[in-house]
């Protein structure tokens, strides 16, 4: 009896030399401009070729401006983008550059184009590679040294992680979303709670989610310290993948599905431990602090460091509240907002944009608030425009941009000014993450839209009919 994780692991072990970690074969390697230049340089120095260009896909996302193309980038950013183009060309790796309709955030385009498939091993020099686990793939972030390893050998050295079940029972109530599930989990276990582990999300609430919701949850597994998060593939997964450009077709599709059906954890297979949450008890969540584990139900109040169980916890909480300029006991509801960011590999897909646009339809972004909507990919952008979502956002006074990482990481010029407070659908509220001195409140697309139209942190359920 094996778990999903064990099955994928076992199928990818190339060698397990005594005393060494397992040598794990990688089915798909995703590449972007920020974490790859030094890896390509290692190959060039040593005269090595990319072993499997056909298992490698590159895109431009982190440093690329969301308006104005290469010209709008600063010199360093432009150099990085051009270097990715040169490196991928020299090595025969397909690249989605500025002009490619397939361009987008690396974790949005992999699934969208059907590259991401159940049972695969997937890596990228990017911690949110965990996103792809929503398809029942073992997907994790690696450093640049390992990017070079994979380019040259298609393998990484890995010790087998602990396998932690995260079971989400029950059904979500209206206005509560996948983002709220993961923020509630992180508030429960903290940002180190999954260290050394790989999550498998199970339970009724996960089964009921669409693929985009599952991606939102797997995406933030890393915020709990788990390198990867998995959801067992099912009919929802297969329906999403059917007909995608790089998914198998015809007889190969039937064969693939038959194989994918063997992947879910066997009944009774053992996990190292389990965490259980009841979805029906959850509320919309917001963060109040400076890491994604410092979150709370939107109707709650900011915790008091005096109640922390240990000195380190107290010091961290005090520091976080000082940075966020929040007082213990203060409610988050009604707190004024300067910026709303709808985007990032966590929440920039079509269903995210639909949810936010429904709330904004017929409403206006509050005076003094800037709202930026950044689709996760050019394909998401085109699909949203075909449905008229762009017109809803624009009519409301929001800014509608080209795809990219944008204000999630503030490398491309999209950023907060010092002191500004943003409600953001991204994944990290670390100090300065969205711009030096900027303050981030993480929330769902619904909660972000509610903040945009009211100008303050607002329970989205009060605006839903």
């Amino acid at each position, binding site marked *: 009896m094996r778990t999903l994780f064990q099955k994928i692991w076992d199928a990818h072990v*190339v060698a397990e030399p005594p*005393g060494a970690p397992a040598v794990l074969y990688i089915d798909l390697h995703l590449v972007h401009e920020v974490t790859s230049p030094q890896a390509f340089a290692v190959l060039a120095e040593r005269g090595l070729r990319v072993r499997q260009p056909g298992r490698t896909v590159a895109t431009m996302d982190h*440093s690329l401006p969301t308006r104005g193309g290469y010209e709008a980038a600063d010199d360093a950013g432009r150099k990085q983008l051009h*270097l990715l183009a040169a490196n991928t060309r020299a090595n025969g790796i397909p690249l989605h550059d500025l002009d490619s309709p397939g361009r987008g955030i690396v974790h949005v385009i992999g699934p969208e184009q059907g590259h991401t498939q159940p049972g695969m091993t997937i890596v990228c020099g990017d911690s949110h590679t965990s996103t792809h686990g929503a398809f029942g793939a073992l997907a994790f972030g*690696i*450093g640049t040294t390992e990017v070079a390893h994979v380019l040259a*050998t298609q393998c990484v050295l890995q010790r087998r992680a602990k396998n932690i079940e995260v079971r989400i029972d029950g059904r979500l109530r209206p206005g509560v979303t996948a983002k709220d599930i993961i923020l509630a989990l992180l508030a429960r276990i903290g940002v*180190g709670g999954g260290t050394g582990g790989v999550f498998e999300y199970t339970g009724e609430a996960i089964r009921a989610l669409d693929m985009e919701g599952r991606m939102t949850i797997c995406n933030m597994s890393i915020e709990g310290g788990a390198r990867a998060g998995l959801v067992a593939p099912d009919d929802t997964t297969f329906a999403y993948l059917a007909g995608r450009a790089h998914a198998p077709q015809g007889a190969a599709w039937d064969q693939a599905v038959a194989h994918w059906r063997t992947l879910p954890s066997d009944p009774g297979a053992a996990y190292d431990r389990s965490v259980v949450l009841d979805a029906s008890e959850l509320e919309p969540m917001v963060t109040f602090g400076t890491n994604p584990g410092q979150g709370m139900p939107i109707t709650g109040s900011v915790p008091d460091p005096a109640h922390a169980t240990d000195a380190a916890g107290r010091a961290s909480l005090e520091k976080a509240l000082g940075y966020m300029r929040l007082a213990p006991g203060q409610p988050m509801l009604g707190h004024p907002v300067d910026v709303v960011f709808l985007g990032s590999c966590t929440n920039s897909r079509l269903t995210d944009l639909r949810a936010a646009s429904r709330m904004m339809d017929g409403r206006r972004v509050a005076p003094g608030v800037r709202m930026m909507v950044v689709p996760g990919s050019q394909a998401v952008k085109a699909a949203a425009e075909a449905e008229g979502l762009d017109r809803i956002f624009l009519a409301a006074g929001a800014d509608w941009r080209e795809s990219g990482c944008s204000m999630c990481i503030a490398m491309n010029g999209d950023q907060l000014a*010092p002191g500004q407070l943003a409600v953001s659908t991204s994944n990290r509220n670390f100090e*300065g993450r969205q711009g030096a001195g900027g303050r981030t409140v993480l929330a769902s697309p619904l909660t972000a839209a509610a903040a945009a139209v009211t100008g303050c942190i607002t329970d989205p359920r009060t605006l839903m009919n």
Partner: protein
Amino acid sequence: MPPQFTTLTARAIVLPHADIDTDQIIPARFLKVTDRQGLAEGLFHAWRRNADGTPRAEFPLNRPEAAGAEILVAGPNFGCGSSREHAPWALLGGGFRAVISPYFADIFRGNALKNGLVPAAIAPEAHAALAAALEQDPALPVTVDLQAGVVRWPGGPNAPFATDPFARDCLLRGVDELGWLLALHPEITAYEHAHAA
């Protein structure tokens, strides 16, 4: 040149906070380099400098006794967040050769080891004792002995830390992991043939 590390005795600086993330170690705007150089400038940038760029005198790395320190003693879950290898590169660029914490985020730990920056995870009690000893005497020489797998300091216990034996061996002997993987070419080819679609 593959990194090498056996043992180090040096001064240490304490950053007591829990969950120090990679965005604090090296903010994203410093990630636009295309080599490994020049990252020390960005190390803990937001904590080290005021908005106008002047140094914050009270930040531990800016204090006079920090000069020449090669060991960082940090709170638990050091290096959480991003997979950016720029974090260990920036720490190495800033002169650090080892970080001591109760535990490390997984990706950071792996990245650090691959660059010869030793992540020494010692028990919380020993960690607290070390931080207290450094508060008494900021010039205390601290030893990180990778060979023996212990951290020690004058008047303190021998605080053991575990390191992945393979990574440890590579560091002690200066073995190049990429070269080691490349030598598995026959095994990798066999795997590819067996799994060809």
